[in-house]
């Protein structure tokens, strides 16, 4: 499938809009996990690195491709690990202590 010119721009436009709308509704409490989460998502670059490495046909290309996969894998794995750790910490009050707010 060839993605050319305007088709690419349409994809970029719609994706940018989706990103803007999805993030725009996130409460501030989740901003750090979200930054980390979006950091994880661009770890998909590892797939591009794999493509480049598997198609490498010279030692130079192999070396750079290896670096690309190494870095991309680090981005993806590390991004997932820290985001997952952070999000697992967010817990609601256990047995309704919020209701214990006495008369003000």
């Amino acid at each position, binding site marked *: 499938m060839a993605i050319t010119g305007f088709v690419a721009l349409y994809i970029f436009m719609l994706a940018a809009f989706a990103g803007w709308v999805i993030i725009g509704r996130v409460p501030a409490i989740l901003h750090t996990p979200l930054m980390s989460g979006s950091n994880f998502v661009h770890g998909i670059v590892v797939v591009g690195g*794999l493509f480049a490495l598997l198609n490498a046909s010279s030692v130079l290309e192999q070396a750079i491709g290896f670096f*690309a996969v190494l870095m991309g894998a680090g981005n993806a794995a590390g991004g997932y690990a820290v985001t997952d750790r952070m999000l697992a910490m*967010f817990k609601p009050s256990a047995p309704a202590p919020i209701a214990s707010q006495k008369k003000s």
Partner: protein
Amino acid sequence: MPLLVPQLAIGAADLAAAFLFLFGLKRMSSPVTAPSGIFVAGIGMLVAVLASFLYVFAVGDAAKPYLMVNVGLAVTALAIGGGLAWWAGRTVAMTAMPQMVALYNSMGAGAAGAIAAVELFGNAAPGATRLVVTLLGALIGAVSFSGSLIAWAKLQGVIKKPLRVKGQQILNALVLAATLAVGGYMVFVGESGAAPLIPMPHLIGLFFGLALAFGILMTLPIGGADMPVVISIFNAFTGLAVGLEGFVLQNPALMIAGMVVGAAGLLLTLIMAKAMNRSVANVLFTNFGAVPKQTQGAMTGSLKPVDAADAGIAMRYAASVIIVPGYGLAVAQGQQKLYEFVKILQAAGVSVRFAVHPVAGRMPGQMDVLLAEAGVPYDLIFQLEDINDAFATTDVALVIGANDVVNPAARTDKLSPIFGMPILNADKAKTVYVVKRGQGKGYAGIQNALFYDDNCDMVYGDAQAVLIKMIEAVRGLGFAAAA
């Protein structure tokens, strides 16, 4: 197209990955569904990575002799890079999270830049459009790579001071212009077929060298306090670079994921800059520390120190308490003790809430994460706009390790460097206790009028030590009452 089935399988896997990323990010928009959101996005990543090994069935003839070695290299790189980063991510302290994100971001940007390099060296990007897009992605990726590394070094404390030289802006502009000129020349050579003045590989090397240098020069003068905004910008940059390289590789999953992150990162950056009352350009191109010091009017009133035990007991008998935590709390590792104190207050029937400023911590929302780590339920944590009106009807505001975010000068003093910044109206509470290590100033380097107010008492000491004294005092009280 040598084999249709692998192509279709890769296409389907990438489509699934793009959907799972969007769906996962959507689920991350609420604390209730967020943990499953990252899991969903993780599945998407796994599917895409596994499917990309199907590329082995579709490699060009030139790469065929190298295929076995390449597969071996790919598996090795995945194992080493993924393994090390996973281990680091699992073990890093929560307070060190911002620099970890900077490091991972640097890796993603480096990968995007490396892909561009492979395309350029392999001459695999025919046509002016693809060459321009490749170079653009390479530029953004390289800048984000070296810039994020500098940001990491600053947050980690490897680089202590912002480095500023005279004419820095001009130097930066010259380096950027040179990078663009080299890139433009490469496009010209590629299009006209003219013999380049220096061999093409050297041009590519020069281009990357200049772009990397620009990333370093651009980040060095920015102060540590502004690093969150910088990381967020570089996060968006990396997304953009990944999206552009996705176009070069004709991979829509990369295009979509990259551009979603680019837009999301831009929005996060704007939100953050707004919370700090600064424009993004202001963060990038001016030096906060260099703001000429305003001669401040003498503070009226005086600082009133009070004993930690007395403050603790006063809160025990208050009806409502709002706690304003700042980074000083995290530095003192006092979150656990704070929540212990809160539970004691709650048991005594005191209504306790947390008020978190958007830029509390070294990264927006980091204070929320640190409180969550200590076990504080998220429904006790309120954001600025949701709680600011409640201070006026609250008995005690307890400010721990925060300073500038409760400085009323932001509302009243037009000369103050933080004028206009949204602040937590802690000064409106009936009584304010400020836990502070000493009489030092906050990041902005200005006096805080709140500390001199009549309703404000200062509790000096390390946050954790102070909280231990408060807990002991209130516990002792309970014992006495029972006896």
